[in-house]
């Protein structure tokens, strides 16, 4: 199968097999299904169906199939994306992939934390959303609280995510869908024009290219379950089923809830400059149930926290495996008695706290934020390019390795699926370098070079760590209480 044996942690406890199909599926749903996408997509009316289909064909289906094949093929290896890319491209490829996933998170964390804090403010007092001290305090409670959940290992964090995703993502989505159906059946006017097939065809031109690229990454996160391979009861059978279940839940909830919002709120009232709670407020007020706004804000806040948890725990586990294999100094190698990579979690929390401080207290540095978010998109694209490339390469380099789930169609099939996914993310990478129209020519060049340089700096540390690697790193490691 592969030259390396399985890589259990060198310290801490051996992984407990606690995850089944449902828990794995919920990890992916937590990472991908987000109510904050719905109002932004509802502006496009029926056309949103076309955009969702593009995202599904060019990303959701390829990444789900790729994840299912790679996770079952490498079911005895820990590290998810790291293990998959390492198997195809060696340590450099695997380390670069997991580091890009981890480092893009650090820049993304303040964004989702601010979303959590501003959404919760809606349940308490909307004016709090403009209070930096409130924002920072809530952001830190959510961030360190989620880190604490991760500290207590897979059993606790998977339960947290299972309950949280049902409460914070699935129930609110179903509620919005149900109310949209009620709105339609009650005889109230649907603000969309009558449905026709032509209405769902997206407008594709130069001006919609950035949106096209955004839609491709709409379903990013489907690889999250792969980080939990060693904790899965029957990985060879559970992964494909979990991938399929999560993809169906995500697609159904996303499309139907977006349409429900589009049925009720006129596009010109879906103010994209404002936020999801403003749309939800309009939605529930139109339905004559304003009392549901605050509870909904609490549920959406929970959804934000479990999404944060999914992205916070998975890549940190992957980086913990890198450290366990001796590619980072022993300081990073510390695993606690619950099997959590405690050092990586703490370092991640410290860096994330610092970036959150800048985000909250320097909010009018608008252009800087724009460039940072462009870098996170580029880093994520690198991860997915490596995953799809690994999928294709392994069919050539390890054609006879057992694959309990195999993408059908042989070599043409793998090129079709891997090729579609790779095309989508390479396209998103290139479009991510496009400057916005308000830049001067000089600023545009500086923007593109800046994003490339920043992405390079955030992606290159693994190559430096591997150069600095010492034999002692692999045998060291401290078990902590």
């Amino acid at each position: 199968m592969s030259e390396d044996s399985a890589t259990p942690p060198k310290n801490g406890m051996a992984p407990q097999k606690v995850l089944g199909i449902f828990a794995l599926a919920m990890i992916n749903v937590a990472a991908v299904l987000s109510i904050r996408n719905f109002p932004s997509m509802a502006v496009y009316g029926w056309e949103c169906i076309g955009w969702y289909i593009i995202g599904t064909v060019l990303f959701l289906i390829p990444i789900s199939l790729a994840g299912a094949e790679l996770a079952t093929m490498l079911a005895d290896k820990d590290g998810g994306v790291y293990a998959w890319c390492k198997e195809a491209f060696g340590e450099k490829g695997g380390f670069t992939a997991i580091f890009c996933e981890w480092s893009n998170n650090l820049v993304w964390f303040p964004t989702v934390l601010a979303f959590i804090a501003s959404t919760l403010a809606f349940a308490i007092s909307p004016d709090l959303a403009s209070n930096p001290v409130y924002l920072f305090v809530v952001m830190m409670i959510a961030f360190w609280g989620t880190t604490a959940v991760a500290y207590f290992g897979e059993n606790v964090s998977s339960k947290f995510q299972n309950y949280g995703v049902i409460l914070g993502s699935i129930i609110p989505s179903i509620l919005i869908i149900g109310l949209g159906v009620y709105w339609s059946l009650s005889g109230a006017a649907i603000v969309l024009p009558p449905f026709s097939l032509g209405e769902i065809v997206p407008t594709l031109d130069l001006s919609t290219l950035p949106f096209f690229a955004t839609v491709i990454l709409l379903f990013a996160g489907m690889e999250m379950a792969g980080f939990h391979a060693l904790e899965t009861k029957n990985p060879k059978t559970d992964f494909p089923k979990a991938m399929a279940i999560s993809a169906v839940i995500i697609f159904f909830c996303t499309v139907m809830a977006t349409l429900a919002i589009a049925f009720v709120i006129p596009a010109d009232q879906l103010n994209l400059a404002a936020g999801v709670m403003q749309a939800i407020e309009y939605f529930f007020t139109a339905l004559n149930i304003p009392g549901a706004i605050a509870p909904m804000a609490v549920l959406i806040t929970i959804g934000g926290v479990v999404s944060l948890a999914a992205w916070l725990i998975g890549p940190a586990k992957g980086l913990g495996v890198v450290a366990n294999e001796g590619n980072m100094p022993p300081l990073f190698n510390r695993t606690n008695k619950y099997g959590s990579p405690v050092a990586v979690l703490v370092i991640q929390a410290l860096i994330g706290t610092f970036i959150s401080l800048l985000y909250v207290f320097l909010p009018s540095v608008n252009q800087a934020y724009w460039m940072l978010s462009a870098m996170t998109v580029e880093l994520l694209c690198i991860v997915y390019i490596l995953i799809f490339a690994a999928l294709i390469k392994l069919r050539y380099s390890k054609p006879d390795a057992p694959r309990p789930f195999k993408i059908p169609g042989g070599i043409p099939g793998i090129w079709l699926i891997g090729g579609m996914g790779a095309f989508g993310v390479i396209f998103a990478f290139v479009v991510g370098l496009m400057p916005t129209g308000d830049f001067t020519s000089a600023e545009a060049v500086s923007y593109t070079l800046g994003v490339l340089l920043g992405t390079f700096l955030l992606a290159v540390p693994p190559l430096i760590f591997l150069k600095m690697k010492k034999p002692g790193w692999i045998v060291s490691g401290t078990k902590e209480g």
Partner: protein
Amino acid sequence: MTQGKDGSWAVILVLLLFFMLPIGWLLVTYTAEPYHAVSGEPLRDAAQAAGITVVNATDTMWPVGGAVGGKTYTLSDESGNIYTVQTQAFDSAESRDAAVQLHNSQSIGRGKPVGKLIIIGNYLVYVQPYTSGILKKIAPELRKLQAA
């Protein structure tokens, strides 16, 4: 502790350096946009100075704290391209910045937000799509108002 010998601190230093370089460079390059009262209608003024026709303008109020009103403009260039832009004035730097923060936290999936906010003193200008040719034409005029 053996961190000094095993290179842990060197690795942490490299890690911090590589994170701080892009972030620090951005903060030095792009400073905060100052809050100042802009008289008149900045978007209409910029469009007219750039030779862009304002086809329509309607009042709009964003449902966020501190917003004091603005307009939704429909613009047209000589080729007949149509572009819709929204503006909104704010009563303080804090409320304006909170609106920027709120918008920036509304990204789709793991991507960037759908549109972009441009800060002109006490105004926020919402542009989408942000690659529009009309935006390229009015941007230099908006920049003059930014500096004013």
